[in-house]
């Protein structure tokens, strides 16, 4: 059986805690086979999870006294009942002979404290070029993971958050 867990000095990486994938020797394996690597700055620590039958267009405040704002917008992974691409053929008169497609239907907006479902809306704008705008919508059977990883413009290089 391969060595899976190392606490101490790794030849590549130095002092730390390392865990390798099944079948990989943590002492010698390639970096890509490390499940846990002490050199990384942030890992997939879950700050909060949520399970909501619906979230209205006004959004959900996911912070509270037990999970206050982190001080930055975190990475939030959202799964809802309906996801995927929407491809809709023009069915209005006069026929524009056009297909409208949204490559990601499940669009969400987030802040340091809230999560809000938004829709991608097509605006052919006289067919001079499709313009894409965001409107409100509701989300159904929503599950989400708030990861303690900054995902905010202006915070990605802030040394206090990464070093």
């Amino acid at each position, binding site marked *: 059986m391969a060595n899976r867990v190392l*606490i101490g000095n790794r030849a590549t990486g130095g*002092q*730390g*805690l390392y865990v390798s994938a*099944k079948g990989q020797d943590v002492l010698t394996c390639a970096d890509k086979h490390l499940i*846990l690597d*002490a*050199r*990384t*700055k*942030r*890992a*997939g*620590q*879950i*700050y*909060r*999870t*949520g*399970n909501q039958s619906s979230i209205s267009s006004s959004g959900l405040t996911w912070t509270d*006294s*037990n*999970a*206050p704002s*982190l001080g930055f917008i975190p990475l939030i*992974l959202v*799964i809802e*009942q*309906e*996801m*995927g*691409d*929407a*491809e*809709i*053929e023009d*069915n209005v008169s006069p026929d524009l002979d056009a297909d409208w*497609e*949204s490559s990601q*239907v499940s669009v969400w907006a987030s802040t340091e404290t809230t999560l809000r479902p938004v*829709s991608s*809306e*097509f605006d052919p704008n006289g067919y001079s070029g499709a313009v894409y705008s965001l409107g409100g919508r509701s989300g159904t059977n929503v*599950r989400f*993971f708030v*990861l*303690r990883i900054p995902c905010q413009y202006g915070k990605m290089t802030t040394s206090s*958050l990464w*070093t």
Partner: protein
Amino acid sequence: MANRISIGKTTNSNLGYSSGSPGFGIYMARSGKNVLNCSPDQLLLNTDRGSAPRIDKGMFQVVPASNGTTTSQTVQVTSGNTGSVNLVNVGSNHVTFVTGGSGAISQNALSGSTSTTITNPSSYTYNDITALTSTQIFRIACFKTLSTAALF
């Protein structure tokens, strides 16, 4: 060099612990930070679960597909039907993440202990327009659900 790893008892007051009320677990601080007195946000690994200031609820984990090595699989689903992907049994009610469909909206669900299913609806309505779906190939990954103590 800073103390990076604590396994066992901790009295880090920034995590809400003290000598009279210690915590137990595995903690690893980011490079250059002392695990004995770092802030919660400076922990790279935290096995606590609880209210502030013990801020993390668990680790983000992916449930492997049944061959035990891949973390996602593709499945072809015809219109109006369901497909499934087999999983390694590490519990049930995992969150199924679906992507890859083209021209259709998939409907996903919580997983069973050994498989998860995805529905390709025969039609869907988007922006008040109803469209029919076709056969789709979806990519599925499953994320491990935490105890309901972490849900709200």
